[in-house]
């Protein structure tokens, strides 16, 4: 190891690392510091306030509502989008009629901007005018304001998220399925194993690493997707569809309360760190047999 070569290596790393530190590591640490500070005002600089921001977070009913919404959103989108993705991949990977078209239909939502498709879905859900209403009306169902009603708004935006994500996750399952030797299926057929048995005993264990990879991505996305909330509901009605990142956006850039916004960011960072730790220490060990 000579010094010149080492210096060369550091020089090549420097630009990328400097940017990563400036926009990932530094802001993560600064957020933690700021969460213990007050929000600076023109005539009053930021001062240390201890846990005050966290205290106001605990007293903030909208925060709890956003957290609850986000958990429901995650609990619904993760299994639905991953399950559908697996079904799609199995279908498209088989000898099904028109599978090229099927694959295209499933994957298309992935390449469309969320902001654009949210506008289309907004129209879809429009009371007494949108497609959903027309189909419902055809079957004699009463008119319903899907996004305006507190009891259906969160489910409505969850559907959009599942629709957007499933095709993306399908790709990873498809890649994994194509790596599985066809002779396994032939062997299973000779042994007289049924389809379900083959799936449960052969495919599912072989797909486990992919499932874990997809699950981790699905969890991260569940706390990161907000574009459709901005377009479709703005967190309403009555905060029924406010998610954590959306609440953070409102606190940070509508109410300009930086101290409190930092405290919410810390909660989000903590959630993602927990996901990372579970992945490293629990799931990665289970993926190998």
């Amino acid at each position: 190891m000579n010094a010149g070569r080492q210096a060369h290596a550091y020089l090549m790393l420097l630009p990328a690392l400097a940017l990563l530190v400036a926009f990932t590591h530094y802001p993560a640490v600064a957020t933690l510091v700021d969460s213990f500070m007050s929000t600076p005002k023109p005539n009053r600089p930021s001062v240390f306030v201890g846990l005050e921001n966290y205290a106001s977070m605990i007293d903030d009913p909208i925060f709890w509502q956003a957290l609850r919404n986000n958990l429901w959103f995650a609990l619904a989108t993760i299994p639905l989008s991953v399950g559908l993705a697996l079904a799609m991949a199995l279908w498209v990977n088989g000898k099904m009629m028109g599978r090229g078209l099927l694959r295209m239909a499933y994957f298309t939502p992935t390449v469309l901007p969320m902001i654009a498709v949210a506008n289309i879905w907004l129209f879809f859900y429009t009371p007494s005018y949108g497609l959903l209403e027309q189909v419902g009306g055809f079957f004699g169902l009463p008119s319903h304001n899907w996004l305006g009603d507190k009891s259906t708004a969160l489910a409505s935006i969850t559907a959009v998220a599942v629709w957007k994500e499933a095709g993306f996750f399908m790709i990873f399952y498809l890649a994994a399925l194509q790596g599985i030797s066809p002779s396994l299926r032939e062997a299973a057929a000779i042994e007289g194993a049924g389809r379900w048995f083959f799936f449960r005993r052969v495919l599912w264990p072989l797909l486990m690493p992919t499932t874990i990879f997809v699950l981790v991505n699905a969890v991260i996305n569940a706390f990161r997707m907000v574009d459709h909330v901005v377009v479709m509901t703005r967190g309403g009605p009555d905060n029924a569809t406010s998610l954590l990142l959306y609440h953070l956006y409102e606190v940070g850039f509508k109410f300009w309360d930086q101290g409190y916004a930092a405290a919410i960011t810390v909660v989000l960072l903590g959630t993602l760190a927990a996901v990372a730790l579970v992945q490293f220490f629990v799931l990665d060990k289970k993926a190998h047999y």
Partner: protein
Amino acid sequence: MSQAGSQSAAGIVDTVAAWLLAILWILPLLYAVWTAFHPSEYSAKFTLLAPLTLENFERAWQAAPFARYFLNTTLLVTLILCSQLVLCTLAAYAFVRYEFRGKNVLFALVLVQLMIMPDILLVENYKTMSKLGLIDTLFGIGLPYFASAFAIFLLRQTFKSIPKELVEAATMEGASSMQILWRVYVPLAKPVYVAFALVSVSYHWNNFLWPLVVTNSVNSRPLTVGLQVFASTDQGIDWSIITAATLLTAAPLLLAFLLFQRQFVQSFMRAGIK
């Protein structure tokens, strides 16, 4: 015999289910196409004889500076992609070809960004941008994404799989370290570069929240933010025009996807497996 019978029955059920799901998945897009290409009185009425029109696109194009938004997004996506390719190639090469102190720690630091994306740190990054005077500039929107942990990780994996013999042969011929990178590593990693480029372009073409926060004028607004401003303030509820604008925004990626479908799917696969 009964085994084969139940297999084919299951096959039919599968096929029907797969197609129903596909129709459901493509329906919103078809609906948008219908609405955008017909006069507004047909936007929710489906008759075969409805006249086709391009008027909605014309009106949308004139009602907001979409030409400027297109330019901004194109510049932004190009800027981000070029920086990512250069910076991440250099970093990945350093991790693969060099031995230096703190290598593993530095690589672990890089991987942190896979979990904590700039999207979530928007309050702090906004402060940094305003200190740097980069609010409302394309450079400011792109800067946090110039170094991508994902690209470094992907390229490092690829570079590692390149046979040592090729590198040794080039060294024997007297090629310098940079020449080896440029003549051996980069050409052999081409499929991975294409894959990453497609993933990066579609991500940043569609990115919304961070650009929404750092921009506040037509000069730097990308398409996604422009569309949102347009749809929420200017239009009331003329769905035909909003849908036309929506399709305009999505059109370049959508057309590219329909034309190079196989390439797209394979790229996303390749980026995902590594």
